[in-house]
């Protein structure tokens, strides 16, 4: 599992590579929690780029749902970028399509915060 953290203006972008399954999800949770803590209750705008994530389980879903709920408390947002068919069907199955905004390009995802 590899996670690359980037900033574009005030937007945090996490490029995630590998399967978001089991203990792999702990690293992502730690990075997200660190970013939220650093923001110190300022709104966090975060893009999770899932282009290179082939598989996600309930632990992975739990991490991104927790991120969504945490940043929302301070009027921030978490959006998903480039989700593949597997992840899309998982999100549909878990009824989370209405929760997460999803984008096909990074520019669209960033523009959604403006």
């Amino acid at each position, binding site marked *: 599992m590899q996670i690359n953290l980037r900033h574009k203006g005030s937007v945090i972008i996490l490029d995630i590579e590998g399967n978001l399954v089991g203990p792999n999800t702990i690293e992502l949770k730690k990075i997200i929690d660190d970013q939220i803590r650093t923001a110190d209750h300022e709104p966090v705008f975060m893009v999770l780029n899932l282009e290179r994530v082939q598989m996600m*389980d*309930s632990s992975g879903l739990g991490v991104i749902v*927790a991120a969504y*709920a945490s940043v929302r408390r301070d009027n921030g947002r978490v959006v998903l970028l480039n989700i593949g068919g597997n992840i899309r069907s998982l999100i549909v199955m878990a009824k989370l399509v209405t929760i997460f905004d999803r984008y096909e390009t990074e520019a669209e995802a960033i523009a959604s915060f403006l």
Partner: protein
Amino acid sequence: MGEKKQLRIFLSLPSTMQLIYLLDTIISDILREMKFNEEAQEHVNLAVIEAGTNAIKHGNKEDTDKTATFEFLIDDDKLTVIITDEGPGFEREEVANPLEPENLLKSSGRGLFLMEACMDQVEYEAKGTIVKMVKYK
């Protein structure tokens, strides 16, 4: 011509979550060999990982002195997976529905739901310490 004999693969794992990836490798190979379609492969893989996580993490509390077992029964038309743990068990009816609006933003509690959504049959025996899942081709 008689039916092909059932093939049985048995796996016994100490309860550490690091071994979930071994489980992933084994079930992926079985599914490819059985020529399940791609969507079914993804679904069974996810269900087995969820059941393994439940057994190792929630059942056996990651106690490496306790064992989680995985039995794969391969037939022409279906795959049966039987998972056991040494935990205290649980009552399925007491596990909240993760699709209810008040549960949607909870960070856990989706494992059983995903297993049941991904497989054709899921049965819980011995207070949930034995889980039997079936996927038809």
